């Protein structure tokens, strides 16, 4: 397994385990590979093991077992070399409230060993890029959540890392800030060839931004591949019917049986069926429910999403993500940042 690790890959992980006190395995034997210049989306619910994986790959936590190479260096044995090659924006944006944005940049630049003569220029250039030039001399305690995230990203980019780790970078951001961050991440990969390892619990983020997605649940990767490929595995749309009376679920299931295979809807009180013939039979379904005399509160047609992939692989819905991301902030195609053709 390890013999097949390829040094030209930006990230190469084999059998990675991270166990905490009490035997809790936050990461339970994952394998993943990220090519140079790729945006890899690491998708999963809260507590799935995303942040622990990032902490191990960024050398902040030693692995319990397995091996991980980042930029060709072993995270357990060559931490300093790994750190020199990576930029990291962790889930909790850690800033000193007493320092200004510019002072953060100078401190971080100094600690990275950027020569004094270049510190100001490099810092100002990045502050400009993330739109913080006007706020550069304000204390970070006065920054909004979006500004803090942007400063965090600028700090992660100071030493021009080849690989960028972003741990839930858009959690809590408004739509505008989120889209701006997506654009910047896409630009980094497109124009500078930066490899991006991005964790998220937002389906749309992984779908829009990532070249490939790894779906993690309870410490193990349950699916991996380009978003389109993953969705193609559960390609047919599903129809979900919510009967007015919960007791009507069995009758609904019976009425829908001729239209396709019953699947888990991920919630109680509704019935979902993956349609054999796609959405063309929707009118027939309504007629069948009507003919059976089943009153229903709601009927919805779902196109396949990464949540369906998650549901198909785990039997559960990716809770929280749909609730926290504002509904349809922009048409999906319009929101997708421009990437160079592979």
């Amino acid at each position, binding site marked *: 397994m390890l013999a097949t690790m390829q040094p030209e890959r930006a990230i190469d992980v084999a059998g990675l385990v991270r166990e905490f006190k009490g035997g809790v395995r936050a990461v339970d034997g994952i394998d993943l590979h990220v090519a140079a210049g790729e945006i890899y989306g690491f998708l999963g619910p809260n507590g799935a093991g995303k942040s622990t994986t990032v902490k191990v790959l960024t050398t902040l936590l030693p692995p319990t077992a397995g091996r991980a190479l980042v930029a060709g260096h072993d995270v357990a044995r060559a931490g300093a070399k790994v750190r020199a090659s990576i930029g990291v924006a962790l889930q909790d944006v850690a800033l000193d409230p007493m320092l200004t944005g510019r002072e953060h940049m100078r401190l971080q630049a100094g600690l990275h060993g950027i020569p004094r003569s270049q510190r100001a220029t490099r810092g100002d250039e990045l502050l400009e890029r993330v739109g913080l030039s006007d706020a550069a001399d304000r204390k970070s305690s006065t920054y909004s959540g979006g500004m803090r995230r942007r400063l965090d990203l600028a700090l992660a980019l100071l030493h*021009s890392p080849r690989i960028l780790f972003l741990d839930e970078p858009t959690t809590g951001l408004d739509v505008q800030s989120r889209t701006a961050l997506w654009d910047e991440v896409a630009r980094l990969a497109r124009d500078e060839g930066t490899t991006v390892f991005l964790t998220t619990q937002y389906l749309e983020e992984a779908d829009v931004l990532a070249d490939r997605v790894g779906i993690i649940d309870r410490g193990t990767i349950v699916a991996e591949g380009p978003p389109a490929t993953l969705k193609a595995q559960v390609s047919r749309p599903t129809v979900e019917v919510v009967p007015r009376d919960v007791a009507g679920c069995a009758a609904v299931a019976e009425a829908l049986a001729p239209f396709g295979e019953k699947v888990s809807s991920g919630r109680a009180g509704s019935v979902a069926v993956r349609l054999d013939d796609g959405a063309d039979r929707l009118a027939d379904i309504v007629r069948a429910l009507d003919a059976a005399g089943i009153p229903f509160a709601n009927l919805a047609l779902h196109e396949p999403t990464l949540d369906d992939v998650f549901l198909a692989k785990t039997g559960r819905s990716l809770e929280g993500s749909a609730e926290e991301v504002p509904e349809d902030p922009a048409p999906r195609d319009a929101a997708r940042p421009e990437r160079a053709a592979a």
Partner: protein
Amino acid sequence: MTAAVASPSLPAQVGLIAGRSVRRIVRQPAQLVFPIAFPLSLLAVNASGLDAATKLPGFPSASYLDFALAIPFMQGALFAALNGGQDLARDIESGFLDRLSLTPMSGAALLAGQLGGALFMGVVSAVIYLAVGLAFGVGIAAGAAGALVLLALAITISFAFACFGTFVALRAGTGEAVQGFFPLFFVLLFLSSAFFPRDLIEQDWFRTVATYNPVSYMVEGVRSLVIAGWDAPALLQAFGLSAVAIVGFLALSSRALRTRLQRT
């Protein structure tokens, strides 16, 4: 643009961390004003209220102000330790320590830089306490050279307390834990010879505790320069105990930092 990168030297790292530490103190007036104003206020109250104690047979000074001038130095050291420890604990809690540890910064630079802020507070407060004492008529029995040694001793003591604060912050990782030690420090101060000479303490248990309390010897070292002149044993004990505390708590802090920073 690609920034040129080379690992910074240890002194450069210490300078950067210490600079941040000092900037943080200066920008929080409560961290600067309160640790200086409170001990001086207490000194003013004690100097007027307890002056009658100087009439006791065997009291070593004719002025309680002279006798009590050592107390603010100790209280200032406590505040410096508390504030420095809490700042470090905040860095741990907020994840700022993780941010720093993702740079080539060494653990030694973090400790030294962090303590640089405490050293700054130690110097500033010691100079102010001494200046206020002199302005209100305190005479330094050991003369001008003695005043300089007094400053050096006060700063050393302050540094020793700061090392303890740093250790607690690194070990516990929370500001509350650091705060929790503050009453203990104050009890140690009150159960020392800070307010009365040990041989005039009537209660046996109090005198015994004060005799075994290292804070007594730190206070007595500072006090000896003010009221007695050059007292080599008192100075050796005060400097010696402070040095032992510095070495001990630095070693413990270093170990706690290695545990705290699990980076590979």
